[in-house]
């Protein structure tokens, strides 16, 4: 198969970028999208040009490193897959394919198609965990969890942190990402203890990082390669509201024993 590629090239964060057109030939239909880009890069190296930089690692759909905006959609045209699991058989021979980086204020461009997503790490650092140490925990089966709750927690925990939800959102909101983490932990007895504080600190952190607000278009769910449900945003809002109300009501402790 042969393709015409229009790819965003940008030397570094400070440089001005633009779309550059390339053609790539002799691609096998069973090749993955990245193997197609590997073929292009091999051509570029052979010609003495600089290859296109893109983020990728596991190439099996689980690490969440890949982040291409293909023909106007995060991770391309196939629902429920990451860019690395997209195969060229999903395109027609001779197609022109537009490839851009994630575009969001909170994700500055590093080079070409690579963006800096450390804002997502910072949100997780603001409470996206259960505060236990490596030791002194109860036997695993001392904590029974309803299977339905455990399964729902897993569904939320399946988020790979790729940021497609942010890239898909007109407001570049990170509500699905943060909602998934808040739900995962709030659904489990282990995570309930800190649930109220967690949601407040994570949302506060998110607000300070340049993400937009949610306007319920559900583009995030539609483009999430792991099918994370917008129900997690509803749960985030519920958790946030009830925690915020309780926080306002809580009076500083002034009594004595």
């Amino acid at each position, binding site marked *: 198969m042969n393709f015409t590629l229009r790819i965003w090239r940008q030397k570094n964060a400070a440089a001005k970028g633009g779309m550059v057109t390339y053609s790539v030939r002799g691609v096998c239909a069973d090749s993955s999208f990245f193997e197609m880009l590997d073929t292009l890069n091999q051509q570029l190296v052979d010609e003495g040009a600089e*290859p296109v930089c893109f983020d990728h690692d596991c190439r099996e759909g689980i690490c969440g490193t890949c982040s291409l905006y293909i023909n106007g959609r995060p991770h391309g045209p196939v629902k429920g897959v990451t860019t690395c699991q997209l195969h060229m058989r999903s395109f027609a021979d001779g197609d022109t394919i537009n490839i851009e980086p994630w575009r969001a204020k909170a994700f500055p461009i590093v080079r070409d198609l690579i963006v800096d*997503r450390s804002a997502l790490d910072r949100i997780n650092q603001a409470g996206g965990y*259960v505060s236990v140490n490596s030791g002194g*925990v109860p036997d*695993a089966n001392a904590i029974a969890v309803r299977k339905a709750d455990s399964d729902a927690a897993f569904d939320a925990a399946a988020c790979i942190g790729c940021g497609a939800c942010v890239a898909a959102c007109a407001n570049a909101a990170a509500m699905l990402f943060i909602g998934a983490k808040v739900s995962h932990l709030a659904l489990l007895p282990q995570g309930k203890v800190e649930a109220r504080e967690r949601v407040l600190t994570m949302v506060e952190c998110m607000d300070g990082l340049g993400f937009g607000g949610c306007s319920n278009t559900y583009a995030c769910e539609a483009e999430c390669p792991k099918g994370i449900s917008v129900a997690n945003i509803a749960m985030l809002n519920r958790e946030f509201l009830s925690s915020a109300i309780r926080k306002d009501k809580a009076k500083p402790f002034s009594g004595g024993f």
Partner: protein
Amino acid sequence: MTRLNAAIPEGPLADKWTAYHSGCRLVSPGNKRKLDIIVVGTGLAGASAAASLGELGYNVKAFCYQDTPRRAHSIAAQGGINAAKNYPNDGDSVHRLFHDTVKGGDYRAREGNVYRLSEVSNQIIDLAVAQGVPFAREYGGLLANRSFGGAQVSRTFYARGQTGQQLLLGAYGALNRQIAAGTVTLFNRRDVLDTVLVEGRARGIIARNLVTGEIEKHAAHAVVIASGGYGNVFYLSTNAMGSNVTPVWSAYRKGAMMANPSFTQIHPTCIPVHGDAQSKLTLMSESLRNDGRIWVPLHKKDVERLRSGEVQPSEIAESERDYYLERRYPAFGNLVPRDVASRAAKERCDAGYGVGRTGVAVYLDFADSIKRKGRDTIEALYGNLFDMYRQIVAEDPYETPMMIYPAVHYTMGGLWVDYELMTTIPGLYAIGECNFSDHGANRLGASALMQGLADGYFILPSTISRYLADEIHTPRIDSSSSEFTLAAEAATDRLKKLLNTKGTQSVENFHRRLGKIMWEYCGMSRNEEGLKKALELLAELKEEYRIGVRVPGGLDEFNPELEKAWRVADFIELGELMVRDALQRRESCGGHFREEFQTPEGEALRKDDEFAFVAAWESMAGGVEPEMHREPLEFLDIKLSQRSYK
């Protein structure tokens, strides 16, 4: 003269770790704050170690080449994690897990280490649950288990087919908590290029900031390498594209010994190679062998008809199929260990019974299980794996059998470490897949996650205090000393040399050629003639690389080609060492199969009287061949026998 002393504690096997633990020297909280530790890698081992050391109050610097710690390749582990909980009441115990692991490793691991691993396994499950890892559960709300290869009990805990992901996110959460607390500082998008020694002790590293290209000097009282395995030496493997041997190799060049480097795990159930442009292979979890049956046609006439698409696999009658694992190994059937299953698949394909377009594949068939348990049950157990298969191969495994073939997956070899997980360089530790310690010549399924987390959460945080207790009077290490400056200059020189070679072939090109040599001569089966040939080919490749590699771009910028160029240079050198190791080991054991040494049934034939030792290789200066040291393996609890899964 040998410098190898594993320092296994005295006393009965079952008491060693407890005795060590309770006698180990400690560092007071006030002093921990003054001690710095560098951790290289943020997979299960690195993230759990950095988090645990941070919790204890040490000052930790964590490094990863990825943009975030959560993407380390542990994330891709699918099937599960073993522990000796015996929740299913099927006869498991710490001793049985220990026994299965030593036997599964074909008696090439240390008893003391493996027993400790089995003991610690239960604590890992407790901790992961406390962190909120959503393991699979039964309707009663308690944890579920499944079986893995090489065991007759169900001791594997799992989170659908994404156990590594969920455990890594647990460790990442613990790490994030320490980053927020200020005990851990994260350095992402860094390649660790060198280990810095001061007066013979590991005192820091040289890192390259992958975004700016800046060469950085980082100092600490101790350095922990947790950089994972080196399967990418084969080019095609189930490893992530960025997985590399560079931090390990830098330590080897500085004097840390490499143990059993030729011990490689070829995983039996991977999606077969589709073509020349292929960049990586994808694993289909071993857990699938709980419900999938492996077969090829019994008759050659069906092979042809299947390859040409004239008939579908479902049309081959039951009596016309060869369920070769069930036939050869009735006691374990489809759940034999990985090395055995891989070789059996190769044997059938080499004999001309392979299926698929290329003839290099066997079937993994779920029809029976779907009939018996229902499609919904199979979907709940393996849904994400089936989806992944369908996406890659464009066939529906609910309707037609999967096609699978073995692929490079894990490396049992690695940096030699003693009982405390310290390498032969004082103050330099190696944990997780990058050390050699616990899996012998073959790792059992669901034991990698167990070992990575055992090392990181529980073993290293305890053993490192013995070393650091002597360091409380050592002031913060100065990274402006001449040792650091020289190492930084050497790294810059090597990078410049790669850029200035200005040859004609891309790094990728060399890497593919390296992979072909390694797979052909040092892969699933090896022989003396082939290994000797590989040594010649690798020497040629190394020289060609030196003068002929083309690396575009500059030094002071984001330059993935330059990153790869350094990694592949290290891989070529590693390849030579692997071949040397495979050549000297004139026996077959586990994943190391020397064609000259096999039983009449084609099973691996060990030679315990000659080769019951760990081969630890020491790098020599000035182009001299590396020197091999032997650490004899003593088996006091387990009786050595020819492995049998029949």
